[in-house]
């Protein structure tokens, strides 16, 4: 799989906040291709499920990664989500997009992961360093000077840490909408709440991040 496969790269909001049209289908309704694959799987042709896995694995994996911050755990969680989606495929009502349903399962898997982690912190000590020190973001342009690059990395690590410290609902809303470019309605469908609730979570998350990052950004500006 190529790193920048346009069929699997998630959409992100542009500066205007609009979501670009490219990427895997992520609308509010079930796409014809997904419907066909799902019906074939339910008729017993389980090999067709690979189509769905190939179509959504990148976004499911990256969604889990941006919430938990570890590639290997995110890989396992997203795979578990695909297996769970397959097991409960008969319950899928085909009224919403398969991706919406799948990402909701991914969120539930991540929630369970955090619960397990809270109960048994020693089990995850190996990935703790990875979780806390690295950023889930990488710059498109690393920076013209080493100083710029270092500042970029520090800011990305700080933002990652601050996002992870947000309450879970605010964190999820922020990651889905601001980081992965889901629309408000889609974020609401994935989170299982109303768009107004998502807006409230986003507002609180943005305020917390603004208050925490403003001194850092002002200091950086003064130094320049």
């Amino acid at each position: 799989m190529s790193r920048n496969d346009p069929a699997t790269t998630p959409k992100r909001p542009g500066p205007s906040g609009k979501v670009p049209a490219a990427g895997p289908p992520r609308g509010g309704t079930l796409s014809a291709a997904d419907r066909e694959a799902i019906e074939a799987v339910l008729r017993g042709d389980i090999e067709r499920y690979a189509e769905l896995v190939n179509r959504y694995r990148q976004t499911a994996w990256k969604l889990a990664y941006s919430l938990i911050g570890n590639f290997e755990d995110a890989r396992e969680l997203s795979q578990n989500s695909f297996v769970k989606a397959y097991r409960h495929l008969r319950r899928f009502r085909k009224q919403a997009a398969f991706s919406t349903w799948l990402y909701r399962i991914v969120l539930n898997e991540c929630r369970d992961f955090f619960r397990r982690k809270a109960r048994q912190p020693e089990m995850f000590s190996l990935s703790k360093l990875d979780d806390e020190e690295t950023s889930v973001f990488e710059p498109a342009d690393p920076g013209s000077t080493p100083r710029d690059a270092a500042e970029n990395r520090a800011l990305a690590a700080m933002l990652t840490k601050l996002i992870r410290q947000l309450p879970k609902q605010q964190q999820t809303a922020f990651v889905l909408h601001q980081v992965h470019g889901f629309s408000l309605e889609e974020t609401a469908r994935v989170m299982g709440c109303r768009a107004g609730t998502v807006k409230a979570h986003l507002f609180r998350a943005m305020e917390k991040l603004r208050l925490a990052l403003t001194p850092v950004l002002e200091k950086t500006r003064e130094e320049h």
Partner: protein
Amino acid sequence: MRAELWDSWLRSWLTQHRVREIPASSCSGYTQEVMARIRHPAHAPALVRFRLPEWQAAFTVGAALACALLVLLVNRPPAPLTTHIEQERLILADAGKPQKLNTSELVEQLRETDQFILAKTIEDVAAEDLLNELKQLDEERFTPS
């Protein structure tokens, strides 16, 4: 930093900073691993069972119990009138009234009334039949020949 400035700064920053791409080495075998797991019989699609959500189930059971209780309370036969004799006697005694009550005759009268009332409550159909018959009798008696 003002909220509007912050908003535009963050959007622009997120446009320039993507979530890390998954290393190509980690991607190999992803789909095959999922497919191997779903081919296992233990992961076969589960059958859909109709199940009420918990709160709906609790509400339904509660409503059914309340209805049953209401029906029992409404249809409960009244206490026989003969049980009131002692109470009445005590009330009269408290009020200083003479207690010369012919209780045996009273008991007999009340028992007859009880029989009628209880029969009406327990066997509504029979009582209705009786009333219908009486009505019919009246009509026959007063119908000019």
